[in-house]
C-alpha cells in the first residue's frame, strides 16, 4: 500500500563531503516500509519527475534517507533543512526477501544505505560487506557494526578497509563463515554483476537491487524497464528494485 504524504524534515545533515542524510516524520510510509523499498520524492516545483531514494532506516514513524548529489534534484534535496516539508510517495517497490538464517548484505557506494534498513529488518544473523570509493565517502559503518555480526569494508583506493572491491569481501566472508542462506546486494551495476557472479560460483542465492530511471514510481508508466535473462522487460519500481540475480540480464 503506497501513500503520498507531506513529511516534515526532522533532521538534515551532511554525512560525508558527498552524502546527505535526511530524517522524515513519515507516518505510515515509515511504518509500512520493508527492507529494500524506496520512496519517490518531489524535488521542488521546477522538476516534474520525483527522485527515487532508498529507505536507509526506519524508527517508528521516522524514516531516514541518505543520498549523494548527482544532479538538479539531489542538489535541491541537499539544501533542505529541518522544519521544511517534503512531498513523499512510498513505500514503493518490491524489497528484499529476508528469509534465511544467515544473510550476507553487500553494499557499494550509495548502495550502502538501504542495506542498513535491511540489516535492521532481518531476523537472523547478518554480516555486512561494504565498499566505498575512498575513505571520505565511507558512511554508516558504526550503524552497521550495531546491526551486523561482522562488518567488512573495502575501498577502491585502499584509503579505508581492504584495498579492493566488495566481491573480494564476499569471497572472504563466504570462506570465513559458512552457510550463508542468501546474499543481498545494492550498488552500481558492475558491482552487482560481479557479486552475482561470485554468488553463482559459490551457489549462494543472490538478490540485487537495480537502479533505473523512473517516471511514476508505482508501475503505471512502464518507463523503468529492466531486462530479464529471458529477454522480457520487468519494471524496477514495481517488480523490483530487488530482483533475484539470475532473473537479471547482465549484458551491457
Amino acid at each position, binding site marked *: 500500500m503506497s501513500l503520498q504524504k507531506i513529511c516534515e524534515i526532522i533532521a538534515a545533515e551532511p554525512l560525508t563531503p558527498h552524502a546527505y542524510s535526511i530524517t522524515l516524520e513519515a507516518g505510515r510510509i515509515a511504518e509500512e516500509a520493508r527492507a529494500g523499498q524506496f520512496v519517490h520524492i518531489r524535488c521542488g516545483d521546477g522538476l516534474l519527475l520525483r527522485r527515487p531514494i532508498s529507505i536507509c532506516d526506519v524508527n517508528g514513524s521516522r524514516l531516514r534517507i541518505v543520498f549523494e548529489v548527482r544532479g538538479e534534484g539531489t542538489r535541491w534535496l541537499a539544501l533542505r533543512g529541518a522544519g521544511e516539508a517534503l512531498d513523499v510517495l512510498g513505500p514503493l517497490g518490491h524489497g528484499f526477501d529476508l528469509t534465511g538464517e544467515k544473510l550476507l548484505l553487500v553494499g557499494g557506494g550509495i548502495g550502502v544505505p538501504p542495506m542498513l534498513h535491511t540489516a535492521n529488518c532481518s531476523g537472523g544473523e547478518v554480516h555486512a560487506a561494504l565498499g566505498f570509493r575512498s575513505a571520505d565517502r565511507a558512511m554508516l559503518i558504526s550503524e552497521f557494526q550495531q546491526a551486523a555480526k561482522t562488518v567488512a569494508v573495502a575501498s577502491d583506493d585502499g584509503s579505508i578497509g581492504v584495498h579492493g572491491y566488495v566481491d573480494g569481501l564476499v569471497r572472504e566472508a563466504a570462506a570465513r563463515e559458512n552457510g550463508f542462506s542468501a546474499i543481498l546486494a545494492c550498488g552500481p551495476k558492475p558491482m552487482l554483476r560481479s557479486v552475482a557472479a561470485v554468488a553463482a560460483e559459490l551457489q549462494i542465492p543472490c538478490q540485487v537491487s537495480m537502479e*533505473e530511471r523512473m517516471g511514476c514510481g*508505482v508501475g503505471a508508466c512502464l*518507463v523503468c524497464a529492466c531486462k530479464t535473462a529471458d529477454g522480457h522487460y520487468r519494471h524496477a519500481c514495481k517488480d523490483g528494485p530487488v530482483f533475484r540475480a539470475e532473473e537479471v540480464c547482465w549484458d551491457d
Partner: protein
Amino acid sequence: MIDQSVCLAGVTLKNPIVAASGTFGFGREYGTFYDLSELGAICVKGLTPRRREGNPPPRIAETPMGIINSVGLQNPGVDAFIAAELPELRRHDVKIIANISGDTPEEYGEMCEKLSAAGVDLVEVNISCPNVKAGGLAYGTKPELAAEVTALAKRHSTVPVMVKLSPNVTDITEIAKAVAEAGADALSLINTLRGMRIDVNTRRPILRQNTGGLSGPAVLPVAVRMVWEVACAVKLPILGMGGVSCGSDAVQLMLAGASAVAVGTACFTDPYAPVKVRDELTQIAQSQGHGRVAELTGGVLPW
C-alpha cells in the same frame, strides 16, 4: 455542486477528466490512491494485437517542464488485456477507453472487433505514437493513411471510435478532416511531440532510442493551439490533452474546444493530479456561473 458530466461521442462521462493513455497503466496502481470511479474515463495503456516488450531503457528523460519518453508500447496484447485487466477495470464506475496501435490497418480492425465485443466504452485509435517504427507515426502524418485506418476501425467497431492525432505535422486540421470524413466519432489530441536530450558528459542521447515523445506542461500552448484549430475545422467532439497539470490548464483546452480533457504526465508529479484537476476545473466553471462544466467547451472568444 454543478453538473460535471460531459458527453464524448455519445458516451456520457460523469466528469470531463480522463486518465491519458500510457501514463495510467490499466488503472491498478493509481487505484490504490483513490477510487477510480472519481474519474470520467480511463484510457488504458496502448494495446497491440500481440504482447510487445517495448524499447530498451532508459525510456525517460526530464526536460524543462517536460519529459520525453520512449516506452514503445510495451503491453501484454489485446487478448491478455481483455482477459486479465478489463474485468478488474469494469468493477469501477468509470468509462473505459481502449487505446490501440497496429502495424497494419487490418490489425486495427482486428483489435476493434475484439474490444467492441469485450465491451469497452470507446476505442481510441492511436495513429501517432512516435516510439514505434512501423505504422504508428506514419499513419498519423498522412491523411490518406489516417483515413484508411479510421475507416477500418469504424467498420469493425460497435462502440464509438476516437482517433488520436499527432502534433508532429505541418497542418493538423488536414489530418483531422481526413479522419472525420472517414467516419471518426471523436478526435483526441495531442500525442507527444518528438524530442531529444543529450547527456553532455557521455555524449549519449539519454533515451536508448535517441529520441522520444515530449509531454508535460511545456507542450500545453501547442496543445491549446491545436485543439482550437481542430475545433474550428471539424465538427467532431474532442478529447483534449497535452501538459494539463491544473484546473485552469484544463479549462483552457475546453474553451479551445475540447469536450473532455486527459491528464497524463502530471500523474508522475502528483498521483492525485487528475482528481485535483477535476476539482479545480469544476470550481472555475462554478465561479463563472455555469450550471454545467460542459458549457465551457468552445467558449473561447478569439479576437
